[in-house]
């Protein structure tokens, strides 16, 4: 990754020593987030708002995975809705079955179908099987698809298009198999979550705490992954896949791991989304919702740790508050966000401060330590190398910065 850059040298002058200490800002940030999520938010928000926030947190879980696969791994995952949907539907199926009671038949099957629970639904009566399925099935699907695709060195735009086609096919399949999936309406009207009554506001709050806790765990997992040798490899594969191959590593395996982890995160997000929102439907999993998840990640800073989470929550919040009042305006705004952020601020808002500071500093008398130009990875030809931004801006809590600090 990029070595000493002018910005980092200057930060050394401007910032106190402890601020630069590895991990201090990061763990401080996580601690602050925990206090805000667990302490402040439940105290000040109404039950309705808190439930809304829980929904946003579930979407932010998908964003954490996208940040790992796309931001660090350079895989443009356009079909995370599939894994989100798999998790959501698995959980929803379990809840429908447990609502129906032992041996019972979910209500929508009596409505659309012949009232017989299909055999592949039966194992989901067990809570243990359901949780295992949510954790393993989407990750397994991602691993199989990823191995098939990455082993043959299909990547860049081709992978993006394939992941998108998967989302399209999945949504069409869900709509088409109405007898077993509820069709366009999806699955809704859940009464209980692992035996807890969902109508009880106390249990709704409990769901929020679970979502907040799971999200924090995911962020910590990504942090640990990125601090490990594996994290360095993942970023290396993003920037120079062929060099990694020449060094004796298998880039396909490196990518598959990140893709599978991202899929598992999305699935857990979906599994919590279903009871929180009270519905999971094809509208949550298709092509457009899958891509829409990316905008928050892009805004927050795709290659940062907390950027995807904050960006995704901010976008969800903006969507809820804006689209209620001006539904047509929101779509324009969303389109403009995609265009503006990705085209002109590829590192997201997290890089804005650093970019401004560099610009200001360029005018000052401080001598340049290194080349002022960004150390961009040489972008290859059509769709080959994911031309990602260079390492995060100096003032962002990214691992890439830590790496640069260690090596500098």
């Amino acid at each position, binding site marked *: 990754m990029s070595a000493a850059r002018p910005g980092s040298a200057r930060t050394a002058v401007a910032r106190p020593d402890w601020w630069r200490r590895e991990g201090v800002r990061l763990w401080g940030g996580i601690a602050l987030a925990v206090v805000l999520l667990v302490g402040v938010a439940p105290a000040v928000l109404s039950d309705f708002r808190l439930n809304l926030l829980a929904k946003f947190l579930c979407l932010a879980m998908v964003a954490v995975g996208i940040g790992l696969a796309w931001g660090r791994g350079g895989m*443009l995952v*356009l079909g995370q809705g599939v894994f989100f949907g798999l998790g959501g539907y698995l959980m929803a199926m379990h809840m429908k079955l447990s609502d129906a009671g032992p041996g019972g038949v979910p209500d929508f099957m009596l409505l659309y179908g012949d009232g017989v629970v299909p055999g592949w639904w039966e194992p989901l009566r067990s809570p243990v099987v359901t949780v295992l399925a949510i954790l393993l099935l989407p990750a397994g699907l991602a691993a199989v*698809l990823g191995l*098939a*695709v990455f082993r*043959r*060195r*299909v990547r*860049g*735009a*081709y992978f*993006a*298009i*394939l992941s*998108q*086609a*998967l989302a*399209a*096919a*999945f949504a*069409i*399949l869900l*709509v*088409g*198999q109405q007898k077993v999936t509820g069709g366009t309406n999806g699955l809704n009207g859940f009464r209980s979550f692992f035996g807890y009554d969902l109508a009880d506001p106390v249990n709704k709050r409990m769901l929020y705490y679970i979502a907040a806790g799971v999200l924090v765990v995911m962020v910590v997992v990504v942090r640990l992954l990125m601090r490990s040798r594996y994290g360095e490899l993942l970023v290396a594969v993003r920037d120079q896949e*062929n060099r990694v191959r020449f060094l004796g590593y298998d880039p396909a395996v490196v990518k598959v791991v990140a893709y599978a982890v991202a899929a598992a995160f999305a699935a857990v997000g979906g599994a919590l989304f279903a009871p929180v929102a009270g519905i999971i439907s094809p509208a949550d999993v298709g*092509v*457009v919702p899958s*891509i829409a998840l*990316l*905008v928050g990640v*892009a805004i927050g800073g795709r290659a940062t740790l907390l950027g995807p989470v904050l960006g995704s929550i901010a976008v969800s919040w903006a969507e809820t508050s804006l689209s209620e009042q001006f539904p*047509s305006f929101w*779509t*324009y705004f*969303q*389109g*403009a*966000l*995609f*265009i503006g952020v*990705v*085209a002109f601020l*590829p590192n997201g808002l997290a890089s804005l401060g650093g970019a401004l500071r560099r610009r200001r500093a360029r005018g000052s008398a401080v001598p340049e330590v290194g080349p002022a130009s960004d150390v961009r990875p040489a*972008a*290859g*030809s*059509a*769709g*080959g*190398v*994911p*031309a990602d931004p260079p390492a995060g801006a100096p003032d962002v809590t990214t691992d890439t910065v830590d790496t640069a600090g260690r090596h500098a």
Partner: protein
Amino acid sequence: MDALLPQLFAGLSLGSVLLLAALGLALTFGQMGVINMAHGEFMMAGAYTAFVVQQLLPDAGVSLLVSLPLGFLVGGLLGLLLEVTLISRMYRRPLDTLLVTFGVSLVLQQAARDVFGAPNVDVRAPAWLSGAVPLLGMDVPRTRLFILALAVAAVLALSMVLKVTPLGRRIRATVQNRDLAETSGVSTRATDRLTFFVGSGIAGVAGVALTLLGSIGPTLGTAYVVDAFLVVVVGGIGQLKGAVLAAVGLGILQAGFEYSTTASLAKVLLFVVIVAFLQLRPQGLVSVRTRSLA
């Protein structure tokens, strides 16, 4: 055996629609490496062009003939605008282009919704395209035949342009070796713009053709753009031949799957087949040999 021939024709017909949708992409994605998610919305713009023209010229036959070149122009100009304002800045970041053009497609869809309203609208087909002609013992709708002919004509015209005209020569030169083309006096910037104009224009024509198949709405393009990209991925980049083969192949496969299972399952099966196919030929059906590692 009786079912085979109609199935084959249904596949061919589906393939011709796919081909029309994918032909422009074969040019912009295949030749230039730009992933334009707004391609579907250019088709939508072409379809609404046909709608507007028919409001002005009530005779369905005349309006169709006027719409085809006008749809090309509308799609092409939209593409040119997009190329000049956004895509030209991002040739080194193909994956980001995908997201930016997705934003553009959101804006265009909403614009169509605001201008023409969310409900679908209909464009009347001309009288000489209504009904069916008996062919090899089955009744073939004339509109399907017309689209098939249009797709063939578009492929022939495009390949002629690429083969014999100065523009085509410049496009091929730029694709094969951008730097060498530039040093030989080809303005690669102007070539990029023109290529994008032509590719987007074909999307407009495809949109006009789609009005013959059913009613049109603001989300018309999203239904086709994913399939169209798959055609280009399977066909391989750099040559039209691949796109043609892939479109017909995928069309026939999908029609076959739909016949033997259901429409929704057919999509999933098609996806599995495509991933399996990429195991055998990750570079697509037809590809230009290069020595690059990527």
